[in-house]
């Protein structure tokens, strides 16, 4: 099977000690993949290195078996929400339109099909009634959805999202999830950095557990063992044992919403 992302011997540092150390993995296509790990474990750094925003100290990244530059058009990146200034004078529509910007059309006028795609993407995340609103006058969850819509507008095959569920209420989380499983059904691959250990086994088909090094990867059942979690999260054992118990109790049940897709 073709791999969506292949990372080989990857080490990344911000000047000092490496933040990612000798990472090696291959991710499947057509799945929803989670990256988990404690704060500061290098999750954001990993996504940024994959997107070419940071230069690795060593190692390489391939996307769809090619160097990223050859397949940029097929990859969409959703940065962490706090990474931009939401007071910027732009509307929801303006920001989502940025998903249609390309190296070769920056100097050209916007075309009608682009407008169409942008409106559809806004519709998909349920923000149509806010499309002309300035982005600072949205709630945190709505801002997050603006970023998701912008990525949708790119029409990519692979989506890399940095914590899209932060500050999002349960209803929005669900609607984004539905969107993601729709995308999965269309054969798209979604990689998501996620924090809530309790939901990972429901949300993801495949997991990467990170703490500077790659601690484990595979299906949630393979990754979420007490040993792996202790290796990644260290001291916070009480929390962990709770999570592990919870997972054991549920024995990875197949949820209704999964069984009917």
């Amino acid at each position, binding site marked *: 099977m073709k791999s969506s992302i292949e990372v080989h011997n990857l080490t990344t540092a911000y*000047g000092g000690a490496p933040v990612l150390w000798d990472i090696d993995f291959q991710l499947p296509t057509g799945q929803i993949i989670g990256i988990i790990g404690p704060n500061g474990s290098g999750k954001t750094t990993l996504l*940024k290195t994959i*997107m*070419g*925003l940071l230069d690795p100290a060593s190692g390489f990244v391939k996307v769809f078996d090619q160097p990223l*530059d050859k397949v*940029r058009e097929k*990859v*969409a*990146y959703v*940065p962490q929400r706090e*990474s*931009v*200034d939401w007071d*910027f*004078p*732009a*509307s929801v529509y*303006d*920001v989502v339109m*940025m998903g249609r*910007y*390309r*190296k070769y059309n*920056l*100097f050209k006028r916007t075309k009608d099909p682009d407008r169409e795609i942008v409106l559809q993407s806004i519709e998909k995340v349920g923000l149509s009634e806010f499309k002309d609103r*300035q982005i*600072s006058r949205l709630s945190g969850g709505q801002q997050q959805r603006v970023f998701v819509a*912008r990525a949708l507008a*790119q029409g990519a095959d692979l989506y890399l999202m940095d914590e899209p569920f932060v500050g999002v209420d349960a209803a929005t989380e669900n609607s984004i999830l539905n969107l993601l499983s729709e995308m999965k059904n269309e054969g798209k691959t979604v990689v998501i950095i996620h924090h809530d250990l309790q939901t990972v086994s429901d949300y993801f088909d495949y997991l990467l557990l990170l703490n500077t090094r790659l601690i484990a990867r595979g299906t949630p059942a393979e990754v979420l063992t007490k040993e792996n979690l202790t290796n990644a999260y260290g001291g916070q054992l009480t929390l962990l044992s709770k999570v592990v118990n919870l997972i054991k109790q549920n024995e990875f049940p197949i949820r209704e919403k999964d069984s009917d897709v």
Partner: protein
Amino acid sequence: MNDFWIILTASLVAINSALLGSFLVLRKMSMIGDAISHAVLPGIVVAYYFSEDKASIFLLLGATLTGVLTSLIIDFLSKKAKIQGDASIGITYTLLFAVGMIMISGWMQGNVDIDLDCVLYGDIALVNMDKVIVDGNLYVGPRAFYIEFLGFAIIGFCLWIGFKGFKLLSFNEDYARSLGIATGRWHYFLMGLVSLTTVVSFEVVGAVLVVGFLIIPAATAQLMTDKLKPMLLYACGFGILAVIIGYFTAVYFDVSITGSMVSVSTLIFLAITVLKRRKRQTKALLKSSTDLRG
């Protein structure tokens, strides 16, 4: 007629500065504007040195590269040498400015067209001394006006065709890079235009106060609107307003014209800030009173 040309020339300075200043303000890079406006000094001196009489327009365009070089050095110091951002700005521009001062005092002694005062404070009252005369006796305006106008044409055109790129760069640089857009080039493109603005304006308003033209109207405009294009227009409007009011105030009180323009600009900024706050308070008050009643 003198008043007219001075105001017109200064208004072009205000427009050029406001357009680029808006992007600097949005990118939170006001200090870079300050740095570039000082650091272009050596470039300007060289432009004067190599042309006999007046600095030629082409040499002035060349001086623009000094500004780009400045931002290259700043980026090198902060990214590669890991010197803290504002420290690398401070180091770079003071060094370049100092080199420019040495060059002036060494080479330019006796050159009537360029001295330190003129570089620092501009000579807005004197722009009319340097006339452009065609057909022997038809006066068509001061030279500074035409230099400024050329700057406006270049800046206006670049912002018009590059609008999407500058918008994306200002809002979300990382995302732009993820799209494969060469943000480095866009950054230096913008820095080149900022540099151009300061080079063509320094004769009129000087290296020190051009920053006021860059930043203050743009910051005021940001208070007025939450759309990008209107923000650019507002910034130009506030810049021109400050030029006109500032000019007549200065003439009336017989004080520095540029100083007066920048002061007026600041007063406008403060007035708008206060008005905005008032408006918000009234709104909140109205709301709470209706809440109470309802």
